[in-house]
């Protein structure tokens, strides 16, 4: 199929100036090929979320354009071109059980009940929540709620997954475990993922390519390819290569937060951990 050879997303000199005059993004260009795991890394306020929301078509670029699978947004959602956004918090409906929450995209699309239930069960199984379909969200821990949110994202069998700091609110141990699970899912399902994070270590561990962004104005500073084979396990986290990538990104982040023009960057934005 030639569908696998066309880029999933092309951001073509897209820039964003908000209604109040805030210049969130200078013109940005970025091409995402199928099967990539891209992380957007950068100090707070550099426009990572803005870029991701433009790619999700939640906000429009002020200038420039975005192509999805070489076309406009109309074709998004068709089989083979499904795009799903995972929010920073789980965003579950508190009145609905976990299974109903996960089934929501299928219900909205009018998928037949028995077929939907089958897919919900499979999706819950993928994230390790098969025992919890009949629980309410408040009965789950934060990490489990996030898993439920990912199960909901996977139930529609997305081709492109956009994730805005999905594990940002979790402790490090839980985050590492979810990272590893996500990476395995990406590998098995041949997904394309664009992932926003503040964490250098998360970026190195997950990505095939890290896009380092700088603030004021928001722009792409550098792209770093993480040339490591998959599957990646815990041994990668403690390897020389991992440390070298982390060091490189650390330097870039310091540069990013200093900023070339004003030098008024936030000194703590380059996250050291």
């Amino acid at each position: 199929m030639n569908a696998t050879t066309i880029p999933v997303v092309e951001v073509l000199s897209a820039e964003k100036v908000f209604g109040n005059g805030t210049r969130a993004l200078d013109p940005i260009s970025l091409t995402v090929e199928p099967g990539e795991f891209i992380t957007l890394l950068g100090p707070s306020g550099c426009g990572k979320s803005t870029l991701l929301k433009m790619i999700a078509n939640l906000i429009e670029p002020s200038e420039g354009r975005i192509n999805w699978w070489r076309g406009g947004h109309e074709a998004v959602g068709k089989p083979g071109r499904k795009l799903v956004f995972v929010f920073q918090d789980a965003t579950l409906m508190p009145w609905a059980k976990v299974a109903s929450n996960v089934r929501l995209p299928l219900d909205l699309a009018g998928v037949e009940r028995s077929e939907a239930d089958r897919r919900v069960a499979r999706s819950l199984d993928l994230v390790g929540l098969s025992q919890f379909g009949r629980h309410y969200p408040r009965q789950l821990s934060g990490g489990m709620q996030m898993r439920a949110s990912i199960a909901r994202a996977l139930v529609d069998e997305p081709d492109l997954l956009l994730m805005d700091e999905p594990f940002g609110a979790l402790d490090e141990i839980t985050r590492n475990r979810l990272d590893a699970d996500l990476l395995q899912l990406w590998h098995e399902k041949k997904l394309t993922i664009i992932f926003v994070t503040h964490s250098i270590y998360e970026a190195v561990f997950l990505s095939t390519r890290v896009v380092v962004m700088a603030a004021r104005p928001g722009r792409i500073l550098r792209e770093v390819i993480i040339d490591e084979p998959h599957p990646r396990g815990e041994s990668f986290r403690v390897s020389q290569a991992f440390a070298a990538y982390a060091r490189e990104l650390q330097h870039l982040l310091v540069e990013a937060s200093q900023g070339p023009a004003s030098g008024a960057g936030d000194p703590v934005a380059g996250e050291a951990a």
Partner: protein
Amino acid sequence: MSTTSGKRLPPLMERPEFVRVAAPIAVGCLLLGLWEWLVHLYAIPQYLVPAPSAIARTLVADWDLLFSSLLITLKVTFLAFFVSVLIGTLVAFVFVQSRWIEMSLFPYAVLLQVTPVVAIAPLIIIWVKDPLPALVICATIVAIFPIISNTTLGLRSVNPGLLNLFRMNKASRWQELLRLRIPTALPYFFGGLRISSGLALIGAVVAEFVAGTGGTSAGLAYQILQAGFQINIPRLFAALFLITLAGVALFLLMVVLSRLALGHWHESELTPET
């Protein structure tokens, strides 16, 4: 404090559900006892303050009269409450369709709310010949506002993340309403019900006072008026007692309804242990 772990139930006094019922009842009995005692101690005449025992005797003796009046007052209350919920909810749905509609109509809802019902009741009673619909209209005017304002607020209080999720899944307006806005609004709606049910009773009683309807459609307010004229103070107190009882019962009914509808998920209905 003794520990409450293990299979053994804690002593009665440490069970919150028992204390919550028993404590107010104990206070009530104490006050009634004090009242009875003071009345006898100072030999207060019945036409000033009757003893609780005298009120209870009247309640039994005049039961047929008082009970039929109670039924009439309750009928007005429930009809007004029902109409308030129906119209109030519809109005709220109209309001959330657009800011323009809400902005142009909301001030009139407020107008309805701030106008004292005693002031408009005579007009309504003149315009509407039948006493029952007239009373229901008056009580509805009092009871409808909390439903409108709470439900409108609830329908608007949707989690923006969930709204984005629905939009990204290309949900129709109808799906958005049914699956997102209505469930979000339910806790607010039930909050409105609690206030509104009490107001419907107050509205019914006030309207009866103004209308002064006697004969076969005499509600509890009429009995209070008559008892006042005849200086039948025990009967006045008995009627008052029935009104209060009806108010408490209505409130409890709303609490139960709200628990049935929200008990499985909403914070307001969750006990700390779960």
